[in-house]
């Protein structure tokens, strides 16, 4: 078990070296949420705490889902996957390694809106909850990215297209631009099915002290989504790996 964890860490280090500066990671993980946020923020008279909390939720979502979908198709194309599959590591170890790289990227980039927020005078009322929420969400969204990358293709663009199709609608139903309480009934039901809702709620609580769901429910929801996503990712990759060789 410890051996496999060490090996997952080795895989994560490799991913950091190779994939952080890849075009799709920068475009979908950094530029995309920034532009999307600016498009919604400009011209709207919303409190800065509300905006920063939304931006943070969206950043952790986009960054954490941008690394994992790139790895599997790229390694299929570059024919590294068979070499990796021949090593004494399980599918779960490979995925855990990829997830770790993605989590670190998600957390690292998420520090930017926090620092920007603090620089313009926003205070973090609940830093511990915020840190825990971001870490948990980064794991959860990275596992979600692994599900996208289980498509047995060597085309990164195909995986990115699928992931964008899912990610975009989630942004609109997760209380980032419109508070959940102001959504119609059906919107609120939809919002509860999105993991992004819960991290956004945690961010609002951390910055503004207001929350829609109880904090324990936000955390429990993120943990449940993480378990579901990771279990599904391991099963799907186990099935798709032979098709990639």
């Amino acid at each position, binding site marked *: 078990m410890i051996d496999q964890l060490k090996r997952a860490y080795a895989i994560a280090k490799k991913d950091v070296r190779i994939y952080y500066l890849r075009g799709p990671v920068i475009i979908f993980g950094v530029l995309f949420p920034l532009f999307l946020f600016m498009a919604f923020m400009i011209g709207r008279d919303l409190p800065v705490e509300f905006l920063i909390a939304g931006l943070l939720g969206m950043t952790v979502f986009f960054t954490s889902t941008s690394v994992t979908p790139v790895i599997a198709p790229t390694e299929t194309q570059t024919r*590294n996957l068979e070499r990796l599959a021949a090593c004494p590591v399980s599918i779960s170890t490979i995925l855990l390694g990829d997830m770790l790289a993605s989590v670190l990227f998600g957390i690292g980039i998420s520090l930017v809106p926090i620092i920007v927020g603090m620089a313009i005078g926003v205070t973090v009322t609940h830093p511990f909850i915020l840190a825990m929420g971001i870490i948990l969400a980064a794991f959860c969204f990275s596992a979600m990215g692994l599900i996208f990358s289980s498509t047995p293709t060597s085309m990164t663009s195909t995986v990115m297209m699928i992931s964008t199709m899912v990610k975009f609608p989630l942004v609109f139903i997760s209380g980032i631009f419109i508070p959940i309480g102001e959504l119609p009934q059906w919107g609120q039901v939809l919002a509860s099915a999105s993991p992004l809702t819960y991290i956004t709620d945690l961010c609002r609580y951390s910055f503004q002290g207001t929350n829609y769901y109880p904090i324990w429910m936000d955390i429990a929801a993120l943990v449940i989504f993480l378990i579901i996503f990771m279990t599904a990712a391991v099963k799907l990759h186990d099935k798709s790996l032979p098709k990639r060789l």
Partner: protein
Amino acid sequence: MGTMNAIEVDNLTKLFGDFTAVNHLDFKVKNGEIFGFLGPNGAGKTTTVRMLTGIIKPSSGKVSIMGLDVRRDPIKAKQIMGVVPELSNAYTELTAWNNLQFMAELYGVPKKDARQRAEELLRKFDLYERKDHKVRIFSKGMKQKLILAMSLMNDPEILFLDEPTSGLDVMSARLIKDMVLELNKEGKTIFLTTHYMEEANQLCNKIAVINHGKIAAIDAPEKLKMKVGGLEWVEISFNTPVDISDFHTMPGVIDVRMSGDKLRLYTDEPGRMVYQLVDYSRSNDLEIVTLNTLTPTLEDVFIKLTGDVK
């Protein structure tokens, strides 16, 4: 350990939908052997190697590596193998050194040993000067040498090489073949898949020929050549033309063919045939210009067994 089988394959089958890629394979590879695995394209070689190395799961059957069930204990079994997959690649965005260290980490090799081993291997493969260069700029031969070095980072007991010299220049191929022999001398068991008959002939103690997912023959190279009897022939030419029908009636002749000014007599007994031909030349007052006995090559065996040529 000495007499133990390194690899035991029992009733191994792989289905892809309705297609049977590997059909109830049974064979054993002895410890310390170089085992050649030959077959035409699409015969099921790579699928078999992938099952032996635990990369894909068999539909049915069992593979044991040094007594470890690959299906039940994949991690332990993989730990003692070195693998050079057919179309694999090193990480081109990493340096040669980092690729080797990454392998060491995946096999749990302690850091100090990993550094020492990487240095040794890089020197052995003449890559040490390039250790800090990204693999992206390596030639095909250099990449293949690095991939072989990567497979040796864990000091494996069994080495699986799937077409290791495919597409390489003569020097690189030779270096890899020499390395295979050297590793075998050190006691490593080698499972070699190759298209090159001469390579298999030179390197392997035992060869299995696979066709349509089944083993067509399995034996030592020389024994395999003998098994395909009737392919031996005596080639003779005389100073004046002769009547071909004289030879059909000679005892032991299976077939007679003209090949340019030479006669080819197919037989199971080339030694006896030579005596008869000498007698024939004396009694007909003919002078023998050339006389050669030819045994089948591994390629002849392969072609006969895989039935690609009439």
